[in-house]
């Protein structure tokens, strides 16, 4: 028996208006979270399908944050299923490592002298490599902030954590990144 395909025109129109404009950003975020183009493409396709099916749950507030939150969640569940090793989570770290990351940073409480605080001179390749090495939770907030240029409130919504956590992860993530770039030679 042939089943006619019935399109829900309203849902398609809503999807086109809400999700599609953010496709380039969605792809960029997925690319940074997975580290490669084909995984990113799979995730964006899957996220688009999820967004379409859930378009009625869109609350008409912030289409960009709503769309990127779906991409982010799709990427995390995709990584968990297909690349569990790549998904270094803060909760996977030992208690000591976690305390180090959350509280002390890499250099503890030592305060560097101005002379020690040299400006970073790294080329794009080095920066990219260092960013790829960051644990996913730190990389995520830095990418959302610097690449997607979201504000703290939107980052908190997308990563589903309080603003305070966004602030501490950004601060720690940047310290880690500086340490990685500083230690590369």
């Amino acid at each position, binding site marked *: *028996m042939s*089943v006619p*395909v*019935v*399109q*829900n025109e309203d*849902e*398609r129109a809503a999807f086109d208006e809400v999700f*599609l404009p953010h*496709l*380039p950003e969605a*792809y*960029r975020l997925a*690319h*940074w979270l997975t580290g490669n*183009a084909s995984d990113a*493409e799979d995730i*964006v*396709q899957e996220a*688009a*399908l999820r967004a*379409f*099916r859930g378009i009625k749950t869109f609350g008409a507030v912030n289409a960009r944050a709503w769309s990127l939150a779906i991409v982010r969640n799709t990427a995390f569940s995709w990584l968990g299923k297909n690349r569990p090793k790549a998904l270094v989570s803060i909760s996977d770290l030992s208690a000591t490592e976690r305390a180090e990351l*959350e*509280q002390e*940073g890499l250099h503890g*409480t030592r*305060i*560097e*002298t*101005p002379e020690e*605080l*040299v*400006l*970073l*001179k*790294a080329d*794009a390749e080095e*920066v*990219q490599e260092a*960013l790829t090495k960051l644990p996913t939770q730190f990389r995520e907030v*830095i990418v959302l*902030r*610097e*690449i997607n240029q979201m*504000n*703290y409130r939107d980052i908190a919504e997308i990563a589903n954590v*309080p*603003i*305070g*956590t966004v*602030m*501490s992860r*950004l*601060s720690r993530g*940047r*310290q880690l*990144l*500086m340490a990685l*770039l500083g230690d590369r030679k």
Partner: protein
Amino acid sequence: MVVSLRDNDDLQLNAYCDGELDPVSAGEFERRLASDASLKARYDRLSSLRQAVRSLPQIDLPAGLQARIRAKLDTERPSNVVVLRRRSWSFQALAAAALFGAVISGSVMMTIEQYAQRENLAGQVVADHIRGLLAPQPFDIASSDRHTVKPWFTARLPQSPQVPDLAAQGFTLLGGRVDVIGHDPVATIVYKHAAHTVSLTTLRPGQSVSEQTIAGYNVRSWSDVNFTYVAVSDLPGADLAAFERAFVAAEPSPEIK
């Protein structure tokens, strides 16, 4: 988690670079930058890092991905319509199932929403505490005299809490501030215990906030007939429990004449 001065500086430095400080704090921070060479060096270093990340080559959307997504959605059929056409005989059963499903998922959604609201409430109170710590002072009115703080609240809010002085129990009154939770201005009393700041936010009664840790801050809540109290601090849970006991024991404080 003990927030050292260094930690606060880092959060503030990051928030300043990200344009997330309010104008007053930003001005304050700029004055510090001008006079503190070490802070300025950290600022320059952070800026150079941000510049390096921002100037990474932009990743472009692969050609044809949008078309592939559109094509995939074209084959996506609204499943309920398909089912109805195939099995029109079971329409009533389906309708009953749908209704049942709606009731179940409705109540689940309500629970989730309530949970989210409750967690959100705690998150907002903690966010105000953090904002307080980042501001030049964590309070709008500085006074260790409860006879100053209480009238200050009374002049600004429809409901103002008792402001007991708990210095004898180790919690020195620092002052008070008005936080905005949801859309409601509420009173927050600020105490100090050793080097730790305790924010006690007073919400309308009958709300529940579970004991939890958010962003390294412990949250403890209790209620009486007038208010739901939410205490936030980097103090250990046991000390926050002692604070609750001291506060509850101190109430009701004598009327201010």
